[in-house]
Structures are given as structure tokens and as C-alpha cells.
């Protein structure tokens, strides 16, 4: 590494091309960087460290700002969680899930892209992004890709982001959120009231026309190696009446039961996670939105 690379200008690339060039030189992109210290600390015992040297993407024009293009809402990968929450373009369900992350200080610097790229099964933004069918827009020396979030995350802690790529933005069709028939639900069960990690979380949304479900979507976080979203269950619910919720619950709960495979860890138990997630889903359906 030459000294030149440490000048602020170089480590704050303004374009995707500059970022790609830094990656080729052995630098690693970082969003808000709020997890670096935590991870380094956790890896200390084994002598490991977070990949370095790092560079920040936040000066890359394309990664900043929140805009709409027709029905598509696009959130730049450098947008902080706070700026997304405060944006009038941000759907309430997404804002609610982002508000459940960490504390104001962390939300002021952490980014949505960072939460996604961490690829934690307990990441609070993911269940909402799954039900919004969010796309992860990436760019790198080999060109641009648009990847559905569920394909982007390949396993706990890993993504399909290539070594030379960065995340540019997260986008989804937000028109459904503005429909008068739109209803949504988000519930995080955490270890305490604030600054807590999820034991489990549920995000769901639907359109309700004349008491009939359409476009019903539901995702469960922290109850399997990846966020669980089941089209089999959603198909069962769509087209059915809201007031038949208890029957619907009876039909889909076995489907969710099969798919949930939570772990016992230092924050909760497998039984609690599974049983509580299933009860929340059953309750959501029987009470209606």
C-alpha cells in the first residue's frame, strides 16, 4: 500500500469505478461500520479480525438518497437508517422495522445495505424486505446486477455479492403500500425494550378488499438459517375471507411449523422461538389485520 491510498480522497471514492479500483487493490467496502468494533472484539480470542483496510462508499453519488422511479422506490446503500425512517417516501412497515434496530446513535450512522450485507438471520430489516420483494442492486467491474433479496442472502453471514462488487441500492415496488386496502404488521420480540437483538420477528402485509385477502405476504425472522417466507401458505390465504381467520390459521400453521427451524442460543430457546412465532401468526390471522 502506498501512502497515497491513505489520503481521504482516495478512500472516499466518488464513483463506482473508483470503488472497484480500490477493491482490486485490496480494500474492502463498508457502510456505516457500526459492527466493525463489535466483530473485531468477538473475533479477538481466535486471533481473527474484520477484513481490512476499509473504505467508505458514502461519497458515491449513486449510493446516496432515496428516490422513486414510477412505482419503484430506491434506497441508496449509503442512506442511514435514521434518514430512511425520516423520509416521507419510506413505507410505515419498513420504518417500523428499522426503528426496532439498535439505538438512535447507531441508526444515525448504520445503513440499510449494511444490515442486509451482514446477512444475520436475525437482521430486523430482512423480513420486511422479503415481503416487499426487495431487489438488491449491485455494481462492480463485471457490470451491474439486480438480485432478489432472498437470493442475495445465501446463508447466515454470507451473500452472493462478488468480491469486486458493492451494493448500490435497495429497491422495491412500493405502490402496494399506498393502496387504501393495504394493511401491515411488524412485531419484533427482542431481549429488551431497546438496543436489543431479535429473538424472533414477524412481518406481514396484505390487501384487504371487501373482507377478502389478496397479495398476502408473511415472513419470519430469526427462526431458521434464513428468513422464512412460504408461498404455499400465502396461496392458501389469498382469496379467502378475513373473518375466516381462525380456520386459515389452522390450515397454514402446520405449513409454517414445518419450515421453522430455530436454534437454542445465548438469547433464547428453539422452543420459545418456534412456539411464539407460530402463536403470533395464528393470532394475526384470527384477529385479522
Amino acid at each position, binding site marked *: 500500500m502506498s501512502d497515497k491510498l491513505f489520503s481521504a480522497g482516495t478512500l472516499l471514492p466518488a464513483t463506482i469505478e473508483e470503488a472497484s479500483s480500490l477493491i482490486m487493490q485490496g480494500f474492502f467496502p463498508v457502510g456505516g461500520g457500526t459492527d466493525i468494533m*463489535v466483530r473485531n472484539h468477538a473475533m479477538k480470542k481466535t486471533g481473527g479480525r474484520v477484513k481490512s483496510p476499509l473504505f467508505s462508499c458514502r461519497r458515491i453519488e449513486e449510493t446516496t438518497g432515496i428516490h422513486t422511479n414510477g412505482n419503484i422506490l430506491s434506497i441508496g446503500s449509503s442512506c442511514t437508517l435514521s434518514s430512511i425512517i425520516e423520509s416521507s417516501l419510506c413505507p410505515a412497515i419498513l420504518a417500523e422495522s428499522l426503528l426496532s434496530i439498535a439505538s438512535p446513535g447507531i441508526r444515525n450512522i448504520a445503513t440499510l445495505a449494511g444490515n442486509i450485507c451482514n446477512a444475520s438471520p436475525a437482521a430486523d430489516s430482512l423480513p420486511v424486505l422479503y415481503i416487499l420483494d426487495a431487489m438488491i442492486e449491485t455494481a462492480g467491474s463485471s457490470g451491474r446486477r439486480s438480485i432478489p433479496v432472498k437470493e442475495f442472502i445465501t446463508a447466515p453471514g454470507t451473500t452472493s455479492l462478488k468480491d469486486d462488487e458493492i451494493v448500490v441500492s435497495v429497491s422495491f415496488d412500493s405502490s402496494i403500500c399506498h393502496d387504501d386496502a393495504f394493511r401491515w404488521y411488524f412485531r419484533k420480540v427482542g431481549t429488551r425494550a431497546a*438496543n436489543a437483538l431479535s429473538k424472533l420477528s414477524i412481518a406481514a402485509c396484505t390487501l384487504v378488499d371487501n373482507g377478502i385477502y389478496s397479495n398476502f405476504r408473511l415472513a419470519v425472522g430469526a427462526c431458521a438459517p434464513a428468513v422464512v417466507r412460504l408461498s404455499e401458505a400465502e396461496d392458501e390465504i389469498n382469496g379467502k375471507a378475513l373473518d375466516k381467520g381462525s380456520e386459515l390459521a389452522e390450515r397454514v400453521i402446520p405449513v409454517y411449523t414445518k419450515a421453522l427451524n430455530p436454534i437454542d442460543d445465548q438469547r433464547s430457546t428453539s422452543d420459545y422461538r418456534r412456539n411464539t412465532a407460530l*402463536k403470533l401468526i395464528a393470532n394475526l390471522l384470527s384477529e385479522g389485520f
Partner: protein
Amino acid sequence: MHKISRPVNRDDSKNKSSGSAVYISDVIKPGMLAMAVKSADFQHGKINTIKKPELPEGYFYVDGKSFTGMNRASIVAQDWPFFAESEVLYFGQPVCAYTGPRIEVCEKLCIQTKIEYTPLPAVSVIEDAADFFNDYTIIKGNPDKSFKEAAQIFENQYRTGMQEQAYMEPQGMIAEFNEGKLTVYGSMQCPYYIKNSLKNAFNLDDDNVRVIQSITGGAFGGKEDYPSILAGQAAAAAIVSGKPVKIVLDRRNDMSVTPKRHPSLIKIRTAVDSEGNITAMDIDCRIDAGAYESLSGVVLERAIFISTGAYNIADVKVRGRTMKTNHIPSGAFRGFGGPQALFAADMNMYYLARKLNAAPLELKRRYLFQRGDISVTSGIFRDDIKLEEMISRVEEISDYSSKWAEYEKTSQAGDKMKGIGISFAAHGGAFTGNGEQEIIKSLVRLEWEPDKQTSAGGRLRILVSNVEMGQGASITLRKIVAEESGLPLEAIIFTNPDTDIVPDSGPTVASRTIMIVGKLIQDAAAMLKQKIEDDINSPSSVEKSYVHPPEFDWDEETFTGDAYPAYSWAVNVIEVEIDPITFEIKITGSWAVYDVGTPIDIKILEGQMQGGTAQSLGYSSIEKMQMINGKPAQVSFTDYTIPTTLDFPDTECVFIDNPYRYGPFGAKAAGELPNEGPAAAFTAAISQASGRMITEIPVTPEMLEEQLR
């Protein structure tokens, strides 16, 4: 309210809140080396070999052989080694250490050090433990007779978990060795404990060990014991290397290797006569001491001496044992055995109320201690006990009884899960048993330094070994001296103790700083005031040592008599709501009435009560620390969740007036009291809300889900 109770601004608030306070991790000495300790990654085993990497230039190796005296810290018992010798007894036990210029290199050397063990059977829970360090039995009255004549006998057992002190500033020390004199600086509660421990560890005489407290960012008991270990390790490295050595534990390391609150398992058999009166209790109290005795014996004493809680039971047998397990040695934590015993005692009264079909408060108030009653150790409660007045006050502010009756109906109907609980707590002020009169023998000194430039004509210096650790000792001790001497507060000086300067007024523990040391400096201030009035322009000083009031009797052999000179009292009410689906617990109300004698500063006291209550509620609910195969599972604040301001409501506090005749301006013990009662009030509330008899803390949603699913 006494005029001394009026709040003044803390003298340490500005530097601590602005970040200008210098903690030990901020201190750099010329030529100073870093240090990292190699901890055992094995629960119990014989050490076969230690394979050490080659030492780079300027790096040194330290282990148990580096101690020229004994490789044992003096923490009440003298059994805990600074570094393991032939055997490792718990996961995380220090085995050896490296010191040198760069911390990263020291840490790497630790990782490269490979230890081979022959496994030995490990004991992880109290039930499996066969060995114990202490086995005490106390008899009050004639329990055998009462049990023989009992119409009914009830039996239940109560369990409490580990708790991490979670002080904001992790532990740290700097040691230097120059011309035969060892000097240690660090974050601590008990400078003279460390001094004595170092004297024994290195065979040094009194003049050659000096301990200086640095600004201490919280302690809660956690800096009573382990700083002696850390100081010994740093001192060994300083002696071996000939350079100043600093060791600061990072958070994960701190949580992995430092003592926690003793887990407990307490079984209580209760004899009830044909009229439904409680006549006797037979209590078996076991606490998990961990791998070494350390100070567990004294923790056990405090637990068994208050083992019937705030309740007067005529005939009592208590057996207490400190069980030996392969865990980190358990240590001091605010309340020191009291929270465990009071949880069991108070929940047992709740259990009996349920069994005897009585409202919990009705049953409890029939047995509350009154003046003249006899304690478990057959001491006499000599002072007025105002628990009835405290009940009236708590009813006024919390509306406990009507809420209890309402929730009794709704919880039976099963729709809403709401509950409210009330508990009673007693805390004996001062060191347990013969500690003050026979062991500590506190000595304080006040010095007058004339200075015509100041409006007071000079400065009055408080020389004690008790520390400011965030609890407000500095400002409260200064207020006592100012009030007694008539000098302005600015003329009274308190600085962090240095054992070359201050006499040994004892450790900063057991809520004794105000009650015992505060009284001594008040008396000394009265004497010094006379000298200053006689001759303001000459330096003068007064020393005062502790004299135990002759009316108190104590027999250390049989544990008979007055275990404490005075008790402080608390009534707690906690209201909860349980989410019927997720079983998440929400605390919706917290009220408390305290008798701590005269508050020396009402704002400091309120801070103690808010913080202490939150700490106890954390202990009861979200602070779960599991040992999995002897290894702590929660070693960061990500996984070990202490409450934030959003978790619990503020506690509405009331202080009643009941001055203590031997306390400074009537003050008695206060700091630990708020940590004693809330757990039982909370668990009673959960029991009502869930319709289950809950006997174990922490109460987690996972535990409720398992019981109620």
C-alpha cells in the same frame, strides 16, 4: 427533612459527564508495558504441559512462580491463586501472562501458548456439588419441637441466578516497582485489601507497598475482590520486567473472568400449627461459591443471618453451605447474599399465603419484625421498626391492595395477565458479625491546613480509605464534615485514597461508608472544629478509631447476638403485565418506601434507589447469565442484557423519618437496600399474573412459555 438531606451538586459530575475524568485506561507511564493473561480454555483438568512460543525481544513471561511470597490472593480466605499451578479449576482461570511493549503481541503470545490437560470431573451446578468451603448452622428457639407439633408442614425451594456487576468501566491496574517499593494504581473499592494481598504475595513490608485508587467508573461489589488478583498479576509483571505494567480487561474478557453474584438454591420447610400460625422454619441455604472460597463465607453469613427475611419466625433452624463448583469464584455484589436470602424468604411467605388461602400482604404483615423482636442470630432489634407506617405510605402511592384484589379476579378469568406484588426487605448496615470491631477496626484522620488566601482560612482534608466509585461517597462525606465543622463545603477536601497517606478506615463495602466511616469523621470533625477555633492559623489533625457500641453482643464462634448494629428497611411494590402470546413481561409500576435513617443527600439517595431497583429488576428478569460447561454463555452487552431506561418505569420513592442514634446525623445503611426487595415483589406480581407459583429468577419469557404453553 434534616437540612443535611438537601441536595447539592455532586463534585464529580462535571468531569465524569464531560469525559475529562482520567480513568486507569487513560493513564500512561514512561516506558510502560502492556500485559495479556492467558486464561484456561478448559473447565477442570490437571495441567500436563504448557507450550510457550519463543519470546520476542522485550517481552516477558509471568506465572505463579513469579510470586516471591505466596501465589494466593488474600480475599478473606487466602486460596485463590493469581495464576493456576498444577490444576485448572474453572474455565477462564489465569494460567500465565505476557508483558511487553505492544498489547497485540502479548495477546498473540497468549493465543500461541498451548496448554495440555488431563481432564478431571467437573461440577457445574449446586445440586451436583458434594464439597463445600463453609458449613454453618444456626438455631433460634426450638424448631424441632415446633416441627414435631406442627399441624401442617410446607416445603418449597427457591433458586436465583448469576448476575454480572456490569460496571461501566472495566477492571484495570498499573503496577510499578522502583527501588524495592511496589506501587499499584487502579480501579478499586478496597485499597487496603489490595495492599495486604500484595504484601503477602511478594513478602514486602508495610512501607514497601503503596496502593492508589484511580477514578473508578462503577463497582457494585465487582471491584472488591478481583482487583486484588489483577493487582497481583500486574505487580508480578512489573517486578519481572522492571518496568511499569498496565493491564486493562476489555469487556468480554472482564465478563469472562471476573466474579459474579452467587447463584443460590434455598429450600424452606415451614411448620404451621392447627390455628394456621407459622411456628417454625427449617432453611437449607446453598450458594454456588465457584472454584475457590475467596469471600464466599461472609456472603453466606449475610444470607443466613437474614434468612427469614423481614419476618419474625419464633423457631428457626438454618444450615448454610458454600458449594464448591468448577465455576469462576463467585464474588461480592451489592446486597452480598441478602438478595438471594430475601428472595427465598419473601417468596416463601407468598407461597404460604397461597397455601393458607390468605392475601399475601395480610399474612406477611402478621410476622413483620418489630422493635424488641429477636433476629435469626438471637440479636435484638433495638430501634423502632416502622414497617406499618411504610405499608400505609406504599398503599397511598401504589394502591396495592385494591389492585391486588382486582387482578386476583381478572387473572382467574384468564383474559388479562396482570399482577402486583409486595415485598419487605431488611439490610443490616456495616460489616457482618465481628467485622467492624475485630477485623476492620476503622481509623480515620482529618487534617486542617491553614491558608489565609481562602475565605474559610484553610482547608480540611478527609483522610479515609473509602472510595468514590460513583455512589457519591465524596460529596456525602464532605457534606457530613462541612455540616459538623461549620466550614463551607468548598473547604472540605476529599481525594482518591493513597495508602501512603490515608489510614485504614476499611473497605468500601456493606453500606458501611456513611454509617460507620461517616460517623467517625463526624465525631472527628467536632473535635477538629475545636482545635481550629482555638488556633485557625496552625495545622492540626484529629484521628478517630471505631469503638463498637457496648450494648451490641456478638459471638463469632456460635454466630449468636447482634450481627449488625442497625437495620435499614424497604417495602417494594411492583406491578406487571405479561403479553399472553409472547410472554414478554412489562413492568408497569414500581413504588418503594425506605427507612435509611436520615438521608445525607436526597438526590444521591434517589439515584441509589432508582439504580438499585433497576439492577434488581434486571436480576429478576432480563439479566440471564448461563454457565454452559463452566463457560459463561453471555460475555458481552449484546447477549447479557442489562436494563436501559426504556425497560422499567421510574420507581416512586418515599423516605420515612427514623434517625439512627449512632449514625452521622441519623443516617444508616442505604446503598445495597434497593437491591434486596424488588426481586420478590416482581416475582409475586408475575406469580399472580400467570397464576403459577414462580420460585426461580430470572423469570424469562422462555421460562413462562414453557410453563404456560
